[in-house]
């Protein structure tokens, strides 16, 4: 590779990274809300049993721990109230923060009503809320707040709750620190590579780039061959990529929604999102196991970097995954979910899962060359893995003491990430980013290391 080509590519990469940083920042403000609230949909119990009477007053508070309060969401129970206003006063340590008037006519029964607060608050103490009404009518109760979403509390229907979102500004500085250091690391990496190129030193990454450029056409050919061979002589062809997950979902949906009475919200989408992601992993890894042994005739006859075979298999499964996003989106729209800003984050879990699958394929294909048992063992392991991941059941059935063990499953992280975006339109907590990156980089590095160490011996064992 020429140095100028490399420099051009490096600059383009840097520009991409900077754009990505700003797009992510733009998303973070709305989507990355979990700095304070950990679990979606669980609000704070606001008031129990009683109604907010005419001229009455209702107090509540939400815990502190945030630098800025963004929104408050209430689920009102409007008992015939049509006129008048409800005043919401927000204060902290007896200092007034914000005052909002809500016209009663705007409130719809059991429909979330969101108040935009966007005020700076003190992190250390709780925030007090005071609801008052000034008008008085003869027919008693006029307004109460009600939450239909809180189902893990006993006698939930009478509890009145509200959701709130706040941001710790510190986390946004933290964001800039993380992205800034990423950029610095990237620059240092590029400079180092450039130096190696200048001095003509051998380097793993430069060789990799060079080979990827040289063999990119071959890879596209191998991927399209895999893909064509898969659907050869089937009438529906590529349509199977779309139909397959849809049919699997239908069967599972029928089984789990009627036989086992699943209580998961938007169960069809929940199910299909998990199946789509996990199917990709199953398919790519079981194709990957065989990638070296199955291409023995080519490995024996021509030189092509050996890692191309497993990686190509993962690529063709990736194309399949992209196709099966279509039915997922359709089911999603039918269930009443909409595309949100958060969908811009969708490539992240997919790319991470792709890298994880690459790492696993490299490991498995190496192992399969020396022990053909790997292939058979793997099909059992994959089945076990399917049940260990919350695909068709809710995570809440796992006993709490096993949860931390349960979360070590890399597939769990990617599916959690993916579902958060699709179901809730939200990014997961920042810590999930860290977990998912780690769980994909470790197997990937291990896979590359093992593969490189043994690839010279492949030909002798085929």
């Amino acid at each position: 590779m020429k140095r100028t080509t490399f420099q051009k590519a490096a600059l383009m990469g840097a520009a991409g990274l900077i754009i990505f940083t700003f797009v992510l920042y733009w998303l973070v403000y709305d989507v990355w809300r979990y700095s304070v609230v950990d679990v979606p949909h669980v609000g704070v119990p606001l008031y129990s049993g009683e109604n907010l009477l005419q001229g009455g007053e209702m107090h509540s508070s939400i815990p502190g721990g945030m630098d800025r309060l963004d929104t408050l969401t209430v689920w009102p129970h409007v008992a015939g109230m049509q006129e008048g206003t409800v005043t919401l006063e927000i204060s902290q340590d007896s200092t007034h923060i914000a005052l909002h008037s809500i016209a009663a006519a705007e409130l719809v029964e059991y429909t979330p009503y969101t108040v935009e607060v966007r005020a700076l608050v003190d992190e250390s103490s709780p925030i007090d809320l005071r609801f008052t009404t000034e008008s008085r009518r003869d027919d008693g109760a006029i307004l109460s707040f009600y939450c239909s979403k809180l189902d893990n509390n006993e006698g939930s229907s009478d509890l009145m709750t509200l959701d709130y979102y706040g941001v710790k500004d510190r986390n946004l500085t933290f964001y800039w620190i993380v992205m800034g250091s990423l950029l610095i690391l990237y620059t240092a990496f590029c400079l180092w590579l450039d130096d190696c190129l200048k001095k003509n030193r051998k380097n793993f990454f430069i060789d990799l780039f060079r080979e990827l450029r040289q063999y990119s056409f071959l890879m596209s050919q191998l991927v399209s061959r895999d893909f064509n061979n898969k659907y050869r002589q089937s009438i529906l062809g590529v349509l199977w990529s779309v139909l397959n997950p849809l049919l699997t979902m239908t069967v599972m949906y029928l089984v789990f929604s009627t036989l086992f009475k699943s209580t998961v919200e938007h169960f069809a989408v929940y199910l299909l999102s998990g199946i789509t992601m996990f199917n990709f992993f199953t398919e790519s890894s079981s194709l990957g196991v065989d990638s070296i042994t199955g291409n023995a005739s080519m490995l024996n006859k021509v030189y092509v970097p050996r890692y191309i075979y497993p990686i190509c298999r993962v690529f063709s499964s990736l194309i399949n995954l992209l196709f099966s996003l279509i039915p997922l989106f359709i089911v999603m729209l039918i269930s009443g979910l909409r595309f949100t800003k958060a969908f811009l984050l969708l490539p992240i879990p997919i790319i991470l899962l792709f890298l994880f699958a690459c790492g696993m394929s490299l490991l498995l294909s190496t192992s399969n060359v020396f022990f053909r048992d790997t292939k058979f063992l793997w099909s059992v392991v994959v089945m076990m893995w399917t049940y260990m991941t919350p695909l068709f059941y809710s995570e809440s059935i796992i006993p709490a003491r096993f949860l931390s063990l349960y979360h070590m499953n890399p597939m769990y992280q990617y599916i959690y990430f993916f579902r958060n975006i699709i179901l809730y339109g939200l990014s997961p907590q920042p810590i999930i980013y860290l977990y998912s990156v780690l769980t994909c980089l470790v197997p990937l590095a291990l896979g590359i290391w093992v593969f490189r160490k043994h690839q010279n011996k492949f030909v002798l064992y085929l």
Partner: protein
Amino acid sequence: MDDTMIRVNDLGICFRMDRNKTTNLKEYVVRALKRQNSYEDFWALRNISFDVKRGEVLGIIGHNGAGKSTLLKAISRIIDPAEGSIECNGKVVPMLELGSGFDYELSGRENVYLNGAVLGYTKNFIDENYQAIVDYSEIGDFIHMPLKIYSSGMIARLAFSIATMVKPDILIVDEILSVGDEYFQEKSYKRMMELMQGGTTVLFVSHSLAQIRLMCSRVLWIEHGTIQQFGETNQVCDSYQLR
């Protein structure tokens, strides 16, 4: 300008002969526990050193199992050397066995692209030369049929056309000129001569001494994994015949 195209330095290729080829884990573990995992090193090639200059045609002769094909595989980077080193300057196109890298389910056209990609050609290059490749192979309309219905001669012709369409710096040929009918043999012989005149270095394995005498400038005679004789064509061929 250094015009050494291939430099082979003290090359050794070692196969580990598993006395009891274990390819399953249970056996492996049981044997490991019993300490029965015994290996025998088999040196398919050892102490091989030679170099080839630009435009030279090097013939390689020897009996079956002497290590000729292993040497070609090592030079095409398919087998990694256990000791010594191989340096190649430029693009190596191996034609070790006809139809290597072909997918018999795909059509001839798709295979031209696939095989071209395996040999490292770019898409543009194949697009430009596609017609020439098809014309040269004289396959005609069969190019749109899947390869599994081709005759072996057709496959040989197609493979040869693809491999020689580019002017490789180093062409590695393992007895493929003996395939195809007489007419195509003559045609391919002509093409090889063209390539050689154009500066391509050729490594050529054959059992036909007549062919070797006709084409090669130097000959390497391998026996039992070591060099028996290396030198002028007629000299080596004579002693090979006498032996």
